[in-house]
């Protein structure tokens, strides 16, 4: 999650507050939906998203999906709202609990902490692409067998995180698990089962 240099919005740095006020004043009168504007600021042309709704194209689970939304909308809310992909859950909505975990270019991220407009270049994978109720992935199957779920609200995020973790640590030690799966919260208290999934699924050793 720390490595966020890939999709920094290029726009924000080069625009002064006065420029921004001017842009707001101009665009307020324009049609609701806009693409990126080019604004001449600090001696160069800078693309600006919004204000007002913009068209966002996201590559989700191998499909190009388009939505019209405010630039302030997070990837999570874009997925759950206009795109109706609801496996990732909104819980803390500020990058703490992991219930919204999705893969961005195969790396687990908190979808509540990324703007949809900034995720447009990336390959997004949600729980829905990892398996289905009648065709569970091995990690999903292990969650069922070890009863690593109760109310189930944290489960999709945990499964995406566990899937990515086991890919990185095919034979995790107990210590790897303590560190690697500590970024998701469960309120019902299913960690015992999740720990068993991570340990036994991949034949790791208790340490």
């Amino acid at each position: 999650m720390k490595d966020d240099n890939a999709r920094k919005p290029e726009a924000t740095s080069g625009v002064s507050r006065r420029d921004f006020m001017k842009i707001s004043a101009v665009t307020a009168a324009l049609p609701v939906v806009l693409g990126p504007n080019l604004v001449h600021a600090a001696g160069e042309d800078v693309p600006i998203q919004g204000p007002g709704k913009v068209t966002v194209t996201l590559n989700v689970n191998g499909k190009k999906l388009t939505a019209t939304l405010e630039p302030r909308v997070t990837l999570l809310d874009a997925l759950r709202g206009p795109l109706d992909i609801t496996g990732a859950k909104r819980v803390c909505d500020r990058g703490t609990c992991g219930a919204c975990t999705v893969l961005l270019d195969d790396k687990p991220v908190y979808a509540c902490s990324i703007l949809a407009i900034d995720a447009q270049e990336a390959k997004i994978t949600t729980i829905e692409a990892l398996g289905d109720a009648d065709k569970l992935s091995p990690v999903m199957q292990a969650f069922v067998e070890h009863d690593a779920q109760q109310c189930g609200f944290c489960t999709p995020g945990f499964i995406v995180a566990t899937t990515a973790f086991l890919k990185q640590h095919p034979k995790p030690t107990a210590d790897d698990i303590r560190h690697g799966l500590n970024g998701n919260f469960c309120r019902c208290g299913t960690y015992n089962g999740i720990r068993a999934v991570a340990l036994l699924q991949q034949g790791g050793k208790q340490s």
Partner: protein
Amino acid sequence: MTQYSWPDPALRPLLGKRIDRVDGPSKSSGRAKYTYDYNPQGLLAGKILRCPYAHAKITSLDTSAAEKLPGVKAIEVIQGPGTEIFWAGDEIVGVAAVDESTCEDAIRAIKVEYEVLPHFVSDAEPPKNIATDTGPISKDEFEDMLDNQVPDEQVVAHIQHNGISFKPTEKDLASYKGEGADSSILTALQKAKFVAAESKPKSPYKKTAVKTTGSPDKAFASAAAVSEGLYGASCIVHSCLETHGSATEWPGDKEMVVHISTQNVSGIAAQLAEPLSVPAGNINVLQQNVGGGFGSKFSVDRWDVTTARLSQKAGGKPVKNMLDRKAEFEVAGMRPSAFARVKLAADKNGKLVAWESRSWGTGGIGGGGTPPLPYIFEVPNQRSQNTAISTNQGSARAWRAPNHPQAAVITMGAIEDLAARLKMDPYDMMLANMDIAGPRAQTYREEFAIADQLMDWKKNWHQRGDTTPGNIKRGMGLSIHTWGGRGHNSTQDFIINPDGSVVIKLGTQDLGTGCLTIISIVAADTLGLPLDAVKVMYGNNHYPQSGGSGGSTTSGGVTSSTRRGAINARDALFAKVAPSLNAQPEDLEVRAGRVQVKGDTSRSLSWKEACARMGAVPLTVRGQNPDKNEPPDLTNSGVGGVQMADVSVDTETGIVRINKMVAVQDCGLVVNVKTAESQVYGALIMGISYALYEEKILDPVTGRVLNPNLEFYRLAGLSDIGELKVHMMTGKGYDERGVIGLSEPPVVSPGAAISNAVANAIGVRVPFLPLTPDRVLEALEQGGANASL
């Protein structure tokens, strides 16, 4: 007359085995749908403008600018000018708009002015000689007492002592009765003296009368050992991962569909009918899955009524309004705090002889719960008094085993401290007092022995204070607990179709407890069918009524109604097919998918063949718990549990780590060992969380919650839990009692066991949960005496 009973242990193909939860695949694959996921075409977003002050009066309100914003579809003023607000976060205006962004803009455009009033949010020990409120009980205060499950006799005493400032109508009384208020309370209300509400500022402190049994002073004077200490647990928040909320639409003028995150599918429509003036029969309540409740989701909340009104104003379009996390912390319930100064005495053999406690705590504006003190142990000589503190914060709601975890921390802490004074192992002291441990004493004895084996308690326990060198100190602690857990009212349609498929319909819900799975197990087990032959339809108030899931009442209720329904269905089927097997109905049995003559497998039909003989019409019967005309119900009440904790405490940093916890738990007949164990593991983890990390912190200056989010309100993570061992009591002495609920009991003891383990490790008592590093270091510095909040 039909004989209802659980099957003989030898004839239970599914019952009591370890079975995967039936809704596991839908949850694991992310396909399970929750209220929060409801997302139909044309869905409008709803949001609530909330009061930023802990105590204030609204002086003016202007929504005109918000109404003009493009995309805003409806605005509903919830509390208007002149209204006094008693806690921060209370609802002022509801907004519906095309999306959440527009709702946020609209809320910013609403102008509200307040007259800010003084607030009080401290639950510190009441100062000595403070004026206490002796005024009459208001309607709100009374209803808060009910919500907080204040013990019946205390509510009655309170009403008799202070009088009431409202006149309960017949309708009120009926509604209290419906919520489960005891008849003694209703009688007290009817007989109460009416006292006009006082206009002078109220004291936040309400003292109960002193309760005395025996001769405590005499007993203390002649005791071999007396221990005095300070114990307690802070306010914590349910923190359901799915916040409270609902989505409502109106397909017709007087016809409403509500998707709601609830523990009480069958009980919602009646609560919505009155404020919305719609017949309850026109309200369809739906919920497939719920992301946690823990006691906080029984009622329709004001914001749910607002959501329905917004939808109405927006032409009936669906409006979804789920609380944001901050509001969830401010207004959607908490567990009341409870603290106490306790004096406890024993004779030289460790037999408890005298108890004295002065306790206090808050549950919000209504005062707070009263922990049952002393917990479990009926000490012969007692004196106790409780002070409820009214604070300007959102009200408490039932939290898993209301008042028991606090009572356990206070009582088991005092016992541990007294044992340390006598240089006695608390294990031995508890066993020495089993004669005053109530009806579950024998259960505790058996559980102590098993817990000892799982923890190696007798081998590893040391006297108070780890004397090994270094800053890491290790210690062990224990606690015991009890709960009722009798099954609630539950009715269901039990249907056998001519093609052999089986359908059960009931208005229940599965909070993640495995409720659906145990219904399926009981039905399939009774009919000799595989688990997947049974389909359970639930989460809809148009199905037969089944109780709310609270107080560990669901497992007993739904398994009893299912067993009874399945037996009724089976017998009805036998009556239809007996002639074709040349037998009497009572001579038939079902075994492994066949209907056969008992003891003669040559005269049999496959399940499908048997069902085909019914003709074209499905067979529908009722299953009901309880049924006074045809007893017995198949549930029971009263369980016992023993828990032990092994912790390490770093005396330099004050950080407590869990090494291991053991839980030995009884819940009568265990229907599914796998999901039952999960409940207990979950309770241990939730207990670790409230013992070490969780605390709702209120700012005395602003009166607001300082940590209304999941980064500063910390929940236990996977790295915090240590090794966990769970043992369910089964077999003789347990199975034949019938099914008893399990959700509350195992969450009672972890805080007490962990607190005791920390005292055993570092040699001093850290008085209050959570045992955060600052509290641990303070206790070490002060040598355990006079630690403050």
